[in-house]
């Protein structure tokens, strides 16, 4: 199938190139020049500005113009609708992102490094990073996104296992003096079978307001600029109906009673209709640049609640007041200067804090009870409140210099060192609903240091041959040193294509959560965890035909020492995180994109196989996925676009779970139920300026998922039983309509 797609892409590109040439009526043809103007410049792969096709990685660049005209509101959406090789899924709470067929469910994004203007966003307690509204950046602030697939620890250290998302923000001049965006959306309620409800009371929706400003002048003989932004987002989801799960019981070891999932529902029953699906995020941004100095501060708060119990403590009570909230504060001061043609230097200091709170309200002793139950209450009629808190503060100093041996950019050597100190901890508090505390658990805190040194030599060996080799060593107070090398060779062919070979590595240090979290009767600590590793080799070819571009990439990866929550012994009910996972991964990617006149298009496809060491496929990780888009710039001015992203069938999140019947024999999901269907989301967008009102633009979007449900199992029944063999899957958002008004004053 992949071969057919590649042949189709190449044939189509050649045909389009010929068509454009013929249509132009220009004996010289401006296609090559237009193609060069379409060649993105990236800074993430080498930490230096370079042509994307010269960079030592496979990169998708998403521009601000694409984000605006295609109606993309988050990095999550940009990944799905535009990237080559990345996939992002919404389990009804924070989204999960995978690369090239490897999506590690439940990792809170800690296998993918997120940078904002070169500053690491992944926090230092669990490595969390978000891609939806939780990223905490107004989409209008983004100049472009660099979606880098493949390991990237050579310059960035831990967490760049699957890739790097580099967010580059706009300068003051690009932002303009004032920019205001107001946005609202509506979505109808959904029934358990995925059908839409016409009841007005079932409507959900969202609202967003963003204000951005840029200011530039000269101060003391040097350029000075400030960019500032603030955003508020509120989403109150539509009514969702879940198929009821019945016969749920729990016990204290002596007595058994119907398990409570709702204060108002029938004991022993989960499901029904709910509106507890919502998000609230706020963010502030302030960046200033004066000559060689750059300073920025970013703060965000991201709260969300979901009706879907994922079996791991998120929103345990079906109608309870449960939520998760993340708060970030990031600050950086950077100085950089080119001292002379042979030497440049950069020093940056950074300070970050992060706080996580998960609030569960539950009527179920099994889900939230810990320690000895209070003697004077009836566990069958009791509501627990559990606050799970985690936090981290970290700061450091990084120094970097580039030695340009010949002083002409052909042989620059980058050397850098980064020293970091981090403090993290966690605490769970279980109490009665009236706030009287009766148990603290999972309490820990630690302070650790990290030192890293890296080097990268780029070399233009010939005008057509570019070499990039690098090495980073990370020493940490609790782990053995990690070495992360990378080598890349790019050859510009005589007909202008780029043939690129890359071998890269990455690691991820175990998070504080993985090393220290413990839950009585379920999970014990493993402070002796060691880092995860990945080794990837890829070979790619990219060719431009005027404004049309074709890219094909083949890749193979080996993930080792992956950290998984597993039983301490095969027969033990106790679990702990262990370095027990391995994944072999390989496949191919293809991309075709371009433009002809007012028409532009894009198509990407990734086919990948990822197999664990026990020869099983990864849950919720499809083996093929991609996206496609077409746009027309209408003569009257607005742009009309149609987008889709699609992915193949995948194992459900609880595919490997089994239950036991009365005789102790294993019970499995009914045949076929361990697979979720292929997915497809469609979107239509019209966007353009409003004539007669200077600076005003309007955008309308209609979209939704074709399939009613995703591959994530929700509800208390995460395992099959004799009377329950068809899992309940998280619903997809079937339909929404969005309207955005943006006004800018340049």
């Amino acid at each position, binding site marked *: 199938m992949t071969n057919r797609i590649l042949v189709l892409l190449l044939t189509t590109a050649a045909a389009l190139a010929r068509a454009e040439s013929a249509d*132009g009526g*220009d004996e*010289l043809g*401006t296609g*090559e*020049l*237009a193609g*060069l*103007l*379409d*060649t*993105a*410049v*990236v800074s993430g792969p080498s930490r230096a*500005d*370079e*042509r994307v096709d*010269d960079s030592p990685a496979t990169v998708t*660049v998403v*521009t*601000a*113009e694409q984000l605006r005209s295609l109606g993309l509101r988050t990095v999550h959406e940009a990944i799905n609708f535009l990237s080559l090789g990345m996939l992002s899924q919404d389990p009804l709470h924070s989204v999960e992102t995978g690369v090239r067929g490897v999506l590690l469910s439940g990792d809170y994004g800690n296998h993918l490094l997120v940078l904002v203007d070169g500053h690491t966003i992944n926090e230092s307690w669990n490595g969390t990073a978000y891609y939806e509204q939780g990223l905490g950046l107004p989409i209008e602030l983004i*100049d*472009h996104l*660099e979606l880098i697939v493949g390991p990237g620890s050579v310059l960035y250290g831990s967490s760049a296992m699957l890739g790097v998302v580099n967010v*580059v923000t706009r*300068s003051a*001049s*690009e932002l303009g003096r004032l920019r205001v965006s107001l946005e609202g959306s509506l979505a109808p309620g959904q029934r358990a079978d995925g059908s839409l409800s016409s009841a007005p009371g079932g409507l959900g929706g969202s609202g967003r307001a963003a204000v951005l400003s840029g200011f530039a002048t000269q*101060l*003391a*003989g*040097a*350029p000075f600029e400030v960019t500032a932004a603030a955003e508020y987002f509120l989403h109150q989801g539509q009514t969702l109906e879940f198929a009821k799960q019945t016969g749920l019981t729990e016990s204290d070891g002596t007595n058994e009673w119907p398990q409570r999932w709702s204060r108002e529902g029938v004991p022993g029953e989960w499901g029904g209709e709910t509106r507890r699906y919502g998000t609230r995020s706020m963010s502030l941004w302030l960046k200033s640049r*004066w*000559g*060689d*100095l750059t300073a920025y501060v970013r703060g965000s708060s991201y709260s969300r609640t979901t009706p879907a119990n994922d079996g791991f403590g998120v929103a345990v009570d079906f109608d309870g007041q449960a939520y998760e909230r993340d708060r970030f504060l990031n600050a950086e001061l950077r*100085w950089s*200067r*080119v*001292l*002379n*043609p042979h*030497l*440049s230097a950069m020093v940056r200091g950074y300070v970050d804090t992060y706080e996580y709170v998960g609030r569960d309200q539950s009527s179920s002793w099994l889900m939230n009870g810990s320690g000895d139950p209070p003697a004077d209450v009836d566990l069958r009629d009791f509501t627990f409140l559990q606050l799970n808190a985690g936090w981290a503060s970290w700061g450091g100093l990084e120094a970097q210099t580039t030695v*340009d041996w*010949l*002083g*002409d*950019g*052909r042989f620059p050597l980058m050397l850098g060192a980064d020293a970091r100190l981090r403090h993290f901890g966690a605490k769970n508090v279980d109490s009665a609903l009236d706030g009287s505390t009766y148990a603290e658990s999972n309490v820990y805190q630690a302070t650790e240091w990290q030192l890293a040194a890296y080097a990268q030599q780029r070399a233009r060996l010939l*005008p057509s041959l570019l070499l990039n080799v690098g090495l980073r060593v990370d020493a940490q107070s609790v782990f053995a040193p990690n070495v992360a090398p990378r080598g890349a060779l790019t050859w510009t062919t005589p007909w202008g294509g780029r043939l690129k070979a890359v071998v890269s590595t990455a690691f991820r240090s175990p998070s504080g959560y993985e090393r220290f979290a413990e839950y009585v009767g379920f999970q014990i600590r493993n402070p002796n965890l060691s880092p995860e590793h990945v080794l990837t080799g890829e070979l790619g070819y990219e060719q431009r035909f005027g404004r049309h571009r074709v890219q094909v990439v083949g890749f193979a990866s080996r993930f080792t020492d992956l950290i998984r929550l597993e039983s301490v012994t095969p027969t033990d009910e106790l679990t702990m995180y262990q370095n027990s996972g391995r994944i072999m991964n390989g496949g191919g990617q293809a991309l075709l994109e371009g433009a002809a006149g007012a028409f532009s298009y894009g198509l990407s496809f990734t086919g990948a196989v990822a197999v664990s060491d026990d020869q099983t496929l990864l849950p919720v990780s499809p083996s093929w996925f991609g996206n496609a888009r077409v746009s027309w710039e209408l003569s009257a001015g607005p742009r009309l676009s149609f987008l889709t992203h699609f992915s193949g069938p995948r194992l459900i999140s609880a595919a490997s779970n089994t239950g036991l019947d009365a005789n102790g024999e294993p019970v499995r999901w009914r045949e076929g139920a361990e697979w979720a269907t292929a997915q497809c989301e469609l979107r239509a967008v019209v966007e353009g300026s409003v004539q007669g009102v200077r600076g005003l633009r309007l955008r309308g979007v209609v979209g939704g998922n074709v399939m009613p449900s995703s591959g994530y199992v929700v509800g208390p029944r995460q395992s099959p039983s004799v009377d329950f063999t068809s899992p309940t899957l998280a619903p997809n958002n079937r339909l929404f309509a969005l309207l955005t008004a943006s006004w800018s004053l340049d």
Partner: protein
Amino acid sequence: MTLVLSFGATPERDEAVVPPQLQAALLSRVLRYDREFASREQRVAVLVVHRESGASEATARQLVAALRSEPALGTAAHDEVLVPFVNLESLVKAIDRHAPRVVVFAPGFADASGPIANALAGRQVLTVSSTPRGIREGFVLGFDLVDGKPSMLFNLASARLQKADFRAEVIKLMKVVP
């Protein structure tokens, strides 16, 4: 504060610069569409001018190396000359001496572009800025980085003064500044 002031005073760090390799590739191709340049030139000199600062000189040297790796400028063979900018008079003398067809200005000329453009009015010299600064003030062609992609800026009035005659279809690809 004293430390900060000394760090802050570097006038040429005023905008992102399109990588010199890409600037050279764009320049070599866009000159095919200058009717004056394409029809007359067999071999041309290119002056690459920089200010007395590390960033400006580094970009200039990289531009020279990148331009030298281009087989042709437009369709002409070419020789690059690196020139430090001292003052307007010395620049004009350098132009008289080398008779360049193209003069490329490295970053750092935001404050001097107007006088330079005025001094070169009437000469058949294409002034090119490696940054977007200076185009409004009189340089003919400039490079900018917008949304992570290169763009070309074009001053139509300066083009007439400096006797550049770009074809309409390539001007469509540029941002024309008043």
